[in-house]
């Protein structure tokens, strides 16, 4: 390491750099952004990141395994459309029935899309970028075909339970986010399967020669990502009270941004759910603060791009 950037990279090498950044950002917003420090606003931030959080958890799995899933937004859209169409046939559906439909649709659509991705990647050796980009087009196209590009309206009120209601003072979508984050964290840090994902992401050949079923690991992370994306699509449909083929466009980039931002390596093997959560919070705070400060949505997009870039620069400096 030469002297010129020794100082900077030393700071960046600290494991908790992003955490410090998140805390500092939060403090600055508390002090300088009007209306930021209210319970209602904090709740808003959590609701705003809850859908991206589900997708980002799945994305963490694929990226840790040295892959990526670009199809998440399209899978969310097709799942939202399918779930909305299904629930529309049951105008008097109860809340448990709606929840059941949402979970079943996520499971079926997510597994099918994810398994196709996983099969192409693990068995046919298609690069993840290409395989999931193909799925991104196929799923989005099918969503348009099924709905004739028209939104699916007129859904029973019970369908909005997950996206709109609260349990006590906590929104249901935020509880769901917490549960998925917790579950993902446990799988990645406490189970053999989680350890194998890291091993495969670090070096597939080493993993194979150590007796890990590399194909199975690579296949399964796309199924997980598919299911969580589909679930996110249904939460979104529940929140908007409709299913539409144009939903969740560009969500893959938000999820990748959250994962990369937290410091998970884009080449696999390093990082995890805590990093993704930090990334989600930072992105959530920045978007929220910019809105409160009256910055236009267009400029917010610019800010997002800059954030992703900074995140990758940090990742490089760490190496």
């Amino acid at each position, binding site marked *: 390491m030469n002297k010129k950037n020794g100082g900077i990279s030393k700071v960046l090498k600290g494991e908790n750099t992003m955490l410090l950044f998140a805390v500092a950002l939060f403090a600055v917003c508390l002090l300088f952004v009007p209306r930021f420090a209210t319970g209602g606003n904090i709740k808003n931030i959590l609701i705003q990141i809850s859908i991206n959080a589900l997708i980002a958890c799945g994305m963490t799995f694929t990226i840790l395994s040295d892959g990526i899933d670009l199809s998440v937004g399209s899978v969310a859209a097709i799942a939202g459309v399918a779930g909305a169409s299904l629930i529309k046939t049951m105008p008097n559906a109860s809340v448990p029935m709606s929840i059941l439909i949402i979970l079943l649709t996520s499971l079926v659509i997510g597994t099918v899309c994810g398994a196709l991705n996983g099969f192409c990647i693990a068995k046919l050796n298609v690069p993840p970028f290409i395989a999931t980009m193909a799925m991104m087009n196929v799923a989005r196209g099918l969503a348009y075909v099924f709905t004739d590009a028209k939104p699916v309206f007129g859904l029973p009120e019970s369908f909005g339970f997950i996206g709109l209601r609260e349990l006590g003072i906590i929104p249901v979508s935020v509880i769901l986010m917490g549960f998925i984050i917790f579950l993902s964290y446990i799988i990645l840090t406490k189970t053999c399967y989680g350890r194998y994902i890291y091993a495969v992401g670090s070096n597939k050949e*080493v993993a194979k*020669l150590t*007796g*890990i079923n590399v194909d199975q690991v690579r296949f399964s992370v796309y199924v997980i990502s598919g299911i969580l994306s589909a679930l996110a699509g249904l939460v979104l449909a529940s929140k908007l009270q409709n299913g539409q083929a144009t939903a969740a466009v560009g969500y893959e980039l938000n999820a990748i941004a959250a994962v990369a931002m937290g410091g998970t390596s884009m080449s696999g093997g390093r990082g995890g759910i805590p990093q993704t959560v930090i990334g989600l919070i930072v992105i959530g705070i920045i978007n929220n603060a910019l809105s409160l400060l009256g910055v236009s949505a267009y400029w917010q997009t610019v800010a997002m791009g800059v954030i992703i870039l900074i995140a990758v620069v940090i990742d490089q400096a760490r190496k």
Partner: protein
Amino acid sequence: MEERKETLVELKHIHKEFPGVKVLEDISVAFYPGEVHVLLGENGAGKSTIIKIISGIYQPDKGEVLIEGQPGAKNIREAQQRGISVIHQELSVIEDLKVYENVFLGREEKKSGFLNKEKMIAECKRILDEMDVAIDPRSPVYKLSNGEKQMVEIARAVSQNSKLVIMDEPTSSLSDHEVQSLFRVIRQLKKDNVAVIYISHRLKEILEMGDMLTVLRDGMKIATVPVSTVTEQKMVEMMVGREISQFYYKAKAPENKELVLEVKNLCSKNHFKNVSFQLYKGEVLGVAGLIGAGRTELMRAIFGADSYDSGEVFLYGESLKGLQPKEIIKKGMGLIPEDRRGQGLLLEKTVRENTSLASLKENSHSGFIDFSWEKREAISYIDKLRIKTPSDSAIIKNLSGGNQQKVVIAKWLLAKSKILIMDEPTRGIDVNAKAEIYELMKNFVEEGGSIILVSSELPEVLGCSNRIMVMREGYVTGFLDSAEATEENVMLFASKGNEEVVYE
């Protein structure tokens, strides 16, 4: 000693420190044109740092470097321009480019602004012919063997008309035949009055090729002497600072022949043909041969990592046909691959995680890792195998080669492997760690394990094996037992067109 010609490179009282470690202390040594100067020392003795200082990658903290009487190079580019080229231990050829493109990388021949391919190809061919290596200049580098890739790097250094060529363990991936070609090149360089700095752990080579010898230990210079005044024994003693009584450890051949592994007529199209052999409990079977004899490919096939076309492998009488490494590992086999950093270890992970990886599932509770078991076992193996590491949580890439290899061995011991395939297990490992690994191997077979030892270092194969199988171009050309095993016999089977296939 008589006054010699002008020095080409001279180091005067060089000191170099990294945070917390003194890597070089008061090093003074001079390198002369037309002379092969060997640097010898264990890993971590400071050889690589000296090279990096000469080639401008590092600057010394104290002391001075003189290149032809002028102050040393400030960066690697300047060093190159002043005639210093380095052939690194890790191959630095670009796999996707062709041989001639690698040789002329950064110095391409041009004709009216466009690449002059014909000229480069012809020039490259001339250099390769001079070196007596049969490589097509138009061949993409990824198609070459490791040894051939090394030759391409050497060709690049030769083509630069360097004044000083530094070779950092150039022979570690070469077969004996290729080593001889390399030596021819070095002799040619000497004749052209080029200075050569040569780093190697292979003592025989040093005696054969070296003129001067500088021994380093822990960043200090022990001595600079003419090679003609030392012996192998003497070099080892200077290097480690004490006498080494026994270097290789050979276990007694087992008395009862209990068959554990049998390979029958194994064939794989471009790699090996009709290979049959038996492995018995408690023995070390050495597998000798030149690079490219198909040994690594054969071992990977036996382990289930690559498929084969025909033939069969039996482990304890059970066929392994169609099984993956995952299942074969469960049956008690372990592979220590040739490429430790690329295939043996998760470099970014900890010693603990690398140790436990092959036995994680068996010791888990319904899929959940038993972290206290993991830590306990890792610490116990660090202790048992004397792995030098700050803790079980140290990232493995920061360990020395020998200690990394011990972790790979620990991984298989923990997984209760009974048969270990060791492919070049001591490549790039210093003398002390080598001796420790030989000792581990001996203990392993004495406790009822069996080892297949693939090695290109003849003394190692001869010193450690109870029987030796020799391969040439994918065929098994002979088996030798301890009594018949001499370097001459092995080389006979490994290199000559001996059609008579000998079985025991």
